């Protein structure tokens, strides 16, 4: 590549300007590196280094005395705790249950809404604007809104329930209902997101195929189940994967609504981690839990990648 004479260097300029010119030359020659460096530095400093820290922390017991940390090396102790931690197992189970239920419901509702919205053109724009609101709202605000709505004494849901003649429902205070109530909030929050992804995918379906099927006498149900859903498989897989990952990270709404209670019925992984780290101050054990969760996430990603690839291919 021909080098153009550099303006700063060509002119007999002041030494400082010449130095500047040399600096920009150097930056330009290594622009590939310079451009990636800030991101790489940030990731090393705030993700890789902390993860290495986790390794050290996980093998230690950390106590606080007069605002100073006291580390002692006890590699077996935390592992022992982990193996006998029934609460962590409960949290894992609740999170899995929560993720499975909410993702399944959201996929069904989201797909239904997407197909309806693309068929009834009159409302398209309005439906889309309305449905974006929950996605952009602070999850904490959603939690606090639903806490008001779930209120046993004055919440709107119990007003409706008593209006219909049934007894008031203890939405977040009973062990049998609490997890379902949390799932309901998640469905309200994230069905619009599934809708958006699937709506874009439905709009992108080849019209000719659907028209051809209609010519051949296929009814609406046949078009949905025999043509649309098979063609939408890649989008469905991506939406489900996105949602599953986010559902596994759930924290804000549960923290606000139930804080894991009553008992341990809505204890989820992130919430338990928060309690171990910042309420019980067990930084060493929390680190080991973190490592376990990271390992589980990576394993999940590897499996999920295989699965989505297989679903999209066939």
């Amino acid at each position: 590549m021909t080098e153009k004479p550099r303006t700063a260097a060509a002119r007999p300029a002041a030494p400082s300007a010449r130095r500047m010119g040399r600096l920009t030359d150097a930056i330009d020659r290594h622009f590939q590196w310079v451009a990636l460096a800030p991101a790489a530095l940030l990731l090393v400093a705030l993700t890789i280094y902390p993860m290495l820290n986790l390794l050290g922390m996980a093998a230690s017991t950390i106590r606080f005395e007069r605002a100073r940390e006291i580390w002692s090396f006890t590699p077996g102790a935390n592992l022992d705790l982990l193996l006998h931690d029934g609460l962590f197992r409960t949290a894992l189970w609740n999170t899995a249950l929560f993720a499975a239920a909410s993702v399944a419901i959201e996929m069904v509702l989201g797909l239904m809404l997407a197909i309806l919205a693309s068929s009834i053109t009159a409302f398209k724009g309005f439906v889309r604007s309305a449905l974006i609101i929950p996605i952009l709202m602070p999850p904490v605000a959603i939690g606090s809104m639903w806490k008001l709505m779930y209120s046993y004494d004055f919440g709107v849901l119990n007003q409706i329930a008593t209006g219909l003649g049934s007894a008031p429902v203890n939405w977040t205070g009973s062990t049998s209902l609490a997890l379902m109530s949390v799932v309901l909030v998640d469905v309200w929050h994230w069905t619009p997101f599934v809708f958006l992804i699937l709506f874009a995918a439905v709009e992108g379906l080849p019209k000719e195929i659907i028209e051809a099927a209609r010519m051949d006498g296929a009814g609406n149900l046949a078009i949905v189940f025999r043509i649309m859903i098979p063609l939408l498989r890649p989008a469905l897989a991506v939406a489900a994967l996105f949602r599953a990952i986010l559902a596994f990270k759930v924290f804000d709404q549960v923290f606000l609504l139930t804080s894991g209670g009553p008992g341990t019925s809505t204890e989820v992984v992130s919430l338990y981690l928060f309690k171990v780290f910042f309420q019980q101050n067990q930084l060493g054990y929390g680190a080991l839990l973190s490592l376990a969760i990271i390992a589980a996430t990576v394993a999940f990603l590897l499996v999920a990648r295989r699965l989505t690839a297989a679903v999209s291919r066939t």
Partner: protein
Amino acid sequence: MLRLRGSSRAAGVALLSLGVFIILAPFLWVMLQSFKYEIEILQGSWLFKPTLFNYADVLYSRRSDFPKNVINSLIVAGFSTVCVLVVGTLAAYSLSRLPWRRRIASIFLAWTLIFNAIPPLTLVGPWYLIFREVGLYGTLVGIILTHITLNLPMTVWMMMAYFNDLPREIEEAARVDGCRRIEVFWCIALPLVRPGLIAAGVLAFVFSWNEFSVALNLTDRATATVPVAIARFAQQYEVQYGQMAATSILSTIPALILMAFGQRFVVQGLTMGAVK
């Protein structure tokens, strides 16, 4: 896509309207509560004289930290958005356009994917210790740094998708004509991906404004952000329902504004990953 006629069309319209109603109703009901006095909320009354007491109390009363929380949140969201756009766009351009070996690029991208998939709380513990060590605990700078990192994966992927869509020939022609690499990036590639910058910026701002789990543990009273304040309102021993409703509504305003003006970009940003 489907052809709905007669009763099935009516049923479809009804279902769709029901869906929209269910999405909007909670918001409207809570907004209603925010205009009531505490006693009216507790009575669950539907007929009442609206009052701005809760908003005045949250925004102007002496004992309320909320204005400070809003300023903190604006600073954190604003700075972290600008920084993540700069850092993320540069990285995306480098990975999409410049001659990296495939392996290095895929390691970088795989790492951001993993980091994006793990719950942030797994890293908040070490962040807490590190920030205490270097004096960033409880500072806005610390929170801004974590928010840049949290939004970096999304920004890099989105911007890479936009850069990959640009025809390489334009940039190659500019190089042949004697442009420097920086000039090609700044004068040619960057203006062409402006929609992507807006989409990524809007989402980064909203996500930073909404972020709770990290802010909860790395801020103190003086640097608490809006979500932390809302959680405090809801978790107090004596819950003030009116203020809780008012802060929830207030915290949603940025999202509503961005939805009104940047909806096209938000939709583009949220769906592009799936469509690609």
